[in-house]
């Protein structure tokens, strides 16, 4: 268990600066997920914590020690690689005990540790097999076992589930969460899948272009995004963002100029039977997707295209609809993408394509 601190981290590859002045605290015992699109710097950050990549500037602290000059093996960090990186010429047992051997752990202690760990991950019958005769899920468990047996302060996982099929992925997701609860070690997890991030992490760090967009709990990210990127990154389908200039005549009072207005598809009420206090948009349904419990509608309005998601309601057959979004479900963003807090619609103003009630 350890707390990780990244202070003013920057990383340059040849002439390109991929990360600039990154500051992050990863709490002791947390399951922190770094999430973001490809190339956002999440894997690079992870590797810098492990020591596999040397930062160009800044400091990395694990607990109370600055590990800038500590080699990877000595940081008490264990890693599960995306492609598992199992030693192909060794058996499962050999893979797991390799690190222990290098630390001079005596034979009987090693055997015991290997035995224990293989029971925890369910690898006991495979100990003498080589990696190429194992399935993807089994290989992943070996990678896990190899990391766990070292009893590290920090567990680092670099997109460990991305090579598994969907069913296995879901299964492993719950197993990893349970593992974290059981071990209590700090987990740092990297993924590009926001659904995976939201379901696993207790602290999510959303990254883009080498910078942290927002670091918060899943709920806060969902309910209170700090900027356009985070708002659009979390949620399926993504938050609807309309440009203010497309919404003719909408009058907003705020401290800063507003550039965009957003709302989540699941918060839009389709053809409300009761009057709703908020923004009302009139539009035409372009496509309907019925996924059983939920329906997703793509609607064209004068303010632009947007999505609405409904739960457990019959499929709307009408072509022209009204969508109402309550005041408190409207999000306002400045032209620079940052969130504008404390903004709201002026009362009682008629809007072409929409009306304020």
């Amino acid at each position: 268990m350890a707390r990780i601190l990244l202070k003013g981290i920057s990383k340059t590859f040849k002439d390109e600066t991929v990360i600039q002045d990154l500051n992050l605290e990863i709490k002791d015992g947390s399951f922190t997920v770094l999430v973001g699109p490809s190339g956002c710097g999440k894997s690079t950050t992870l590797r810098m914590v492990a020591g596999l990549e040397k930062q160009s500037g800044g400091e990395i602290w694990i607990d109370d020690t600055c590990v800038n000059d500590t080699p990877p093996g000595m940081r008490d960090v264990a890693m599960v690689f995306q492609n598992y990186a199992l030693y192909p010429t060794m058996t499962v047992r050999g893979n797991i005990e390799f690190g222990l051997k290098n630390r001079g752990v005596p034979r009987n202690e090693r055997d015991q540790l290997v035995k224990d760990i293989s029971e925890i991950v369910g690898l006991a019958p495979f100990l003498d097999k080589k990696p190429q005769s194992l399935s993807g899920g089994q290989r992943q468990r070996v990678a896990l076992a190899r990391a766990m047996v070292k009893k590290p302060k920090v567990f680092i996982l670099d997109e460990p589930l991305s090579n598994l099929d969907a069913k296995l992925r879901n299964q492993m997701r719950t197993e990893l969460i349970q593992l974290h609860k059981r071990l209590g070690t700090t987990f740092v997890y990297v993924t590009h899948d926001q659904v995976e991030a939201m379901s696993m992490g207790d602290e999510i760090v959303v990254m883009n272009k080498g910078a942290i967009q927002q670091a918060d709990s899943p709920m806060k990210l969902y309910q209170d995004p700090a900027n356009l990127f985070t708002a659009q990154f979390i949620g399926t389908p993504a938050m609807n963002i309309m440009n203010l200039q497309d919404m003719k005549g909408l009058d907003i009072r705020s401290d800063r100029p507003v550039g965009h207005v957003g709302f989540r598809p699941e918060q839009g009420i389709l053809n409300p039977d009761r009057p709703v206090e908020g923004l009302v948009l009139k539009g035409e349904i372009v496509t309907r997707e019925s996924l059983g419990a939920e329906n997703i509608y793509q609607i064209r309005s004068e303010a632009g295209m947007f999505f609405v998601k409904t739960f457990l309601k019959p499929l709307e057959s009408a072509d022209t609809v009204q969508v109402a979004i309550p005041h408190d479900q409207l999000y306002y963003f400045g032209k620079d993408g940052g969130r504008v807090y404390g903004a709201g619609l002026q009362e009682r103003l008629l809007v072409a394509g929409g009306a304020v009630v």
Partner: protein
Amino acid sequence: MTLWHKLRPYGMVAPSIIIFSLFFIYPIFYMMYLSLFDWNFISPTKTFVGIQNFVDLLSEPEFRQVLSNTTVYTVLTVALTTGLSLLLALWLNRGHFLYGIVQGAIFSPHIISLVSISLLWSWLMDPEYGLLNWVIGLFGFGKLQWLSHPSTSLISLVIVAVWKGIGYNTLVFIAGLQSIPADIYEAASLDRSKPWTTFTKLILPMLSPTIFFLVIINMIGSFQVFETIAIMTQGGPVNSTNTLVYYIYEYGFRFFKIGYASAAGVILLVIVGILTLVYFKLLSNRVHYR
């Protein structure tokens, strides 16, 4: 399926199969047949002598020396070439373009004809005026006889063979090293593996198919050495560099003892055959771990 469809594949492979049968398969059997006869190529009759040729060969001290020469040459060449090129590969396996130039330089002898190399090294190893003696002179050594003395002649040929072959072997090793994924090295470093441990426990085992491949083809190639001997030493001095293929050549084309030469050829066939079988056996045993 029409008759045309059925016959078509046979038509497609026929030319090649015919060529191979005529010029590769049949000759093997013909050679085995000839080894049982005594024939001087000119006379119309062949005298059947059964296994006498083999008996003569194996009791002939000249042939025993030839076998010994060939074996020593092969062992030295293979050991030096494979060993040195592995070391070179570990050193030169960098992406920087300067290393690319060095790799190109050591590879250049591979595509040049063995004739040119033999002629060049004959000159380099000239006892009186050769460059090699000048180079070792810089280090304080006296002139060596190189190819002209029975005690140094075989080693000189080994040097030439290593010089020619090391580039190719090194580059094959480099390709093998590069096929090892980077994250294996990273996992090893996280496992606190020291460089020597990583090399012996991870890299060498992963390279073992490549090592076997190179050892076998180097061995097969060395057993068949001819050009360098034909041009540089003609088997001498005093039979010290006479090797199997040259021996067959001499007895077949110089002395016209066709049956005798064929018998030697059969022995070469057996050796090469065994080596090939060993290679395939090892190949199928070595599990491919991709």
